[in-house]
């Protein structure tokens, strides 16, 4: 039986089997390639998307488990936190190669929704599962502080 989920506010009836990871449904079936494949085993964070408002590693989510859920990908993140993160990311020129960045951005939005004034420690803990091979960590941290400032203004 087809699984139906809402992706970026559009209901989608999926042809993939229920054990298929959400990541592959997004990229291969729905052609939403903003979400990246880094490891497939929850080690890198590149595949992070919002699932019912929480950042999750889409490579670890079987679609059979999320029928009826809301998924938001990097293509459609929105709201004040998303706007602040987008602005801060540009101001701080965070991105190097960019491969990890859709995951970093979605995770950072999740952090600011939970905690609008994170400390360095909060950032390091919450973002610890988002790996960047270009080592943009210092700029990611600065940009999250900047996004918090934008939110507070």
């Amino acid at each position, binding site marked *: 039986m087809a699984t139906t989920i809402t992706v970026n506010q559009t209901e989608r009836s999926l042809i993939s089997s229920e*054990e298929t990871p959400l990541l592959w449904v997004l990229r291969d079936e729905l052609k939403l390639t903003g979400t990246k494949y880094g490891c497939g*085993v*929850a080690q890198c964070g590149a595949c992070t998307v919002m699932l019912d408002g*929480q950042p999750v590693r889409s*490579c*670890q*989510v*079987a679609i059979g*488990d999320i029928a009826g859920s809301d998924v938001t990908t990097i293509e459609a993140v929105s709201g004040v936190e998303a706007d602040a993160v987008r602005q801060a990311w540009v101001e701080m020129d965070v991105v190097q190669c960019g491969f990890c960045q859709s995951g970093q951005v979605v995770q950072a939005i999740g952090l600011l929704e939970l905690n609008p004034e994170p400390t360095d420690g*909060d950032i390091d803990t919450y973002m610890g599962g988002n790996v960047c091979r270009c080592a943009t960590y210092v700029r990611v941290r600065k940009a999250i502080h900047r996004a918090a400032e934008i939110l507070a203004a």
Partner: protein
Amino acid sequence: MQNTRALMACALVAGLLLAPAFAADDETVAYPAAGTVDGATGLEAWSRIYEVASHPRCANCHTGESDVPMWSGPSYGDEPRQHGMRIRAGESRIGAEHLTCSTCHSYSEIPQTVPHAAPRVGASWQLAPAEAHWFGKSSEFICAQLRDLERNDGRDYLALADHIGHDVILHWAWSPGVGREPAPYSLAEHIMDIHLWGAAGQPCPQD
């Protein structure tokens, strides 16, 4: 083979009062009644229980006051180490104060078939309560904790066996997915051992 061992242990108490009960798989199993198992048999059962409790599949998430899960076991090399990614489970034990365990450990009954992927089960992934500190602890220490109602959530041995039979996150230890060594024995054998140990009066090596 393990089944045979548990059955033989059971045979030691044959002829004594046997109390019917349900194991995790809902198969009717006859468990020994309280007071019908001798101390030596109870201690043997305890040593098998300790093998399970101290196995990485169980102990890695029984880290006591530390809210950091451990990575140890055959797939992690010789030295145990803390869970990567700065993971902290917080007082909530599910990471709610930091990064929820469910970010990676999905709630799923669909078996994990990818080696090295995040373990998952049809329950919320979490650390055991701080009182149940098993990682790196001795047989004596864990035994004393498990029979102490103050530190085992008020469970007598029957409640403990029932908890193990019905809390599916614990069942993950015996079906941890591809590439991970399961806990020793089987769930049914482990539950039988809890009954044997309990019916013998919960003896510990230090008694």
